[in-house]
């Protein structure tokens, strides 16, 4: 078992993924911890001010309620002015970081050879054929979506969605330029869910859990190229026909109508629900205006549709939601 795991983990091209997992886990923890620490300091400062025991020149150095980044300093460094000479204060750190990275890359390159397989041979398809590791998340989604969605539409939406983030932010003054969690709960959770849950985790699954025929193999399982899994998946309309016993639902026309309705209903309910919730709670998101509000949550609920579709497939064995002669969703 350990042998098998080691075999997979130590494949030269998989080393970067192991490194990526460690670094992502480490830095996510760092960011969240700094945020929580900062939040605590701010709360303390606020209550100190309230009880008028707050003295000027305490370690918190807060002014007009703005957050601090003072969590980074030793008492010694607190004496430095707020703006310092770039040389040597910043250049020193950059120089050190550069040294570490260069030495690290040198060692890595001396002790581990880059992979070079057999010469390219169009007549022999390796099984499994995998995309480069950073695209394996998308390849993993091919299990649940047709190529036009997993390979084209989703990457496009990811890029546009990322670019849109600054313009769909209803509280630009909150958490601008410092670590915090309390002030940006929803933004941070949504981003981390997408980045870690839907991107990094999918990459890891695609790398370590997928064997011949893109079938699921635990890292300690031997890859068996002859394994067959019999899995019958049905489309949504068939699924409904099965549970209601109405035969008419199983026809292609019914599929087109039901699929269309299901997707329209999904967006109507989620977007409508979010809007009602926002109005009830008077969320600052309302200040975005209706159009931007809808775009923001359209992106959000489209992202959430991915895990929903995965669950529908894994739990209810539903293949497509919407089948048409031209495309399937």
């Amino acid at each position, binding site marked *: 078992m350990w042998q098998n795991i080691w075999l997979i983990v130590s494949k030269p091209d998989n080393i970067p993924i192991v490194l990526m997992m460690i670094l992502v886990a480490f830095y996510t923890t760092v960011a969240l911890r700094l945020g929580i620490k900062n939040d605590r300091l701010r709360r303390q400062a606020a209550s100190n001010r309230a009880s008028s025991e707050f003295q000027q020149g305490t370690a918190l150095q807060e002014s007009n309620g703005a957050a601090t980044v003072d969590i980074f300093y030793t008492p010694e460094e607190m004496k430095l002015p707020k703006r310092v*000479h770039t040389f040597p204060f910043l250049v020193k750190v950059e120089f050190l970081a*550069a040294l570490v990275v260069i030495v690290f890359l040198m060692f890595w390159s001396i002790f581990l050879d880059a992979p070079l397989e057999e010469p390219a041979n169009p007549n022999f398809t390796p099984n499994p054929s995998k995309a480069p590791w950073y695209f394996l998340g998308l390849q993993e989604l091919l299990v649940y979506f047709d190529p036009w969605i997993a390979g*084209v539409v989703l990457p496009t939406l990811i890029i546009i969605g990322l670019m849109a983030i600054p313009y769909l932010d209803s509280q630009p003054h909150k958490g601008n330029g410092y670590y915090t969690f309390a002030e940006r709960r929803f933004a941070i959770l949504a981003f981390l869910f997408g980045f870690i849950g839907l991107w990094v985790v999918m990459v890891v699954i695609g790398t370590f859990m997928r064997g011949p025929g893109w079938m699921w193999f635990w890292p300690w399982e031997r890859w068996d190229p002859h394994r067959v899994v019999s899995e019958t998946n049905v489309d949504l309309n068939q699924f409904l026909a099965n549970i209601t016993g109405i035969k008419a639902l199983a026809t292609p026309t019914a599929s087109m109508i039901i699929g269309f309705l299901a997707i329209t209903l999904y967006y109507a309910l989620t977007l409508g629900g979010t809007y009602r919730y926002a109005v009830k709670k008077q969320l600052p998101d309302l200040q975005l205006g209706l159009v931007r509000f809808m775009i923001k949550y359209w992106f959000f609920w489209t992202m959430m549709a991915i895990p929903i579709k995965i669950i529908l497939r894994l739990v209810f064995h539903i293949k497509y939601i919407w089948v048409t002669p031209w495309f399937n969703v």
Partner: protein
Amino acid sequence: MSNRIDEVIKKVQKEITESDIYRSIYRIPPGDTPRTRLLWILDTVYLHLHPSHVSRHGCKYFFTWGMGGISFLVFLILTFTGVLLMFYYHPDTANAYQDMKYLMHDVPFGPLLRNMHRWAAHLMVITVWLHMLRVFMTGSYKPPRQFNWVVGVCLLTLTMLLSFTGYLLPWDQLGMWAVTVGTNMARATPILGHEGPFGEQLGMTAYNDVRFALLGGSIVAGNALLRAYIWHCIALPLLVGILLMVHFWRVRKDGGISGPKLEG
């Protein structure tokens, strides 16, 4: 004893920093005064990307994780090793694989060169992701830095495309099939791909759709290798270079490293 060594070192240091040659290169008078500190930044071409002063927290490693800077360093390493690799590489199917073997067995420091380019490429993908994570977690995409975030997303996309086009160049099974899997997706592009929604209805075939344009053919073969090579060695690095200039310029113009508004 150690006193004597110190003395010798000081003397040598003085000899060097006060020599005509050294002075002609650095333009900066010796000594550590506020004036020389400024001159180091303002008068050296490599350091002048920096402002003369930075916020105190901007110097703390755990504020920025140095990830933007590290990404840039790795990009420079890739450019350097990449140019050297180009001396040994022919972008055609008859030679490409042989060139790899030659690099790994006969070229002096060939393996180091190739390994370093390969691992740095993977590393850059990782550091750019982490840089994005940091920028998000400190809310640094917020005003006035919205546009620099957009430039950043373009850089992220280009970084991954650079890595992807490079994957094909060794012309081995790994690269060829990875790129085949990747570009097969283009077949399914709505409207523009022959297997995508409405593609067939609009007259797309395997010989005129976007995948054909990307590969210069209907399969991953010689033309695809040449196209990957040109994208990888010329077009994409140029684009990244231009965007990096915009990116760094905006970091400066948007007020340097972000931070809470406190001053006072």
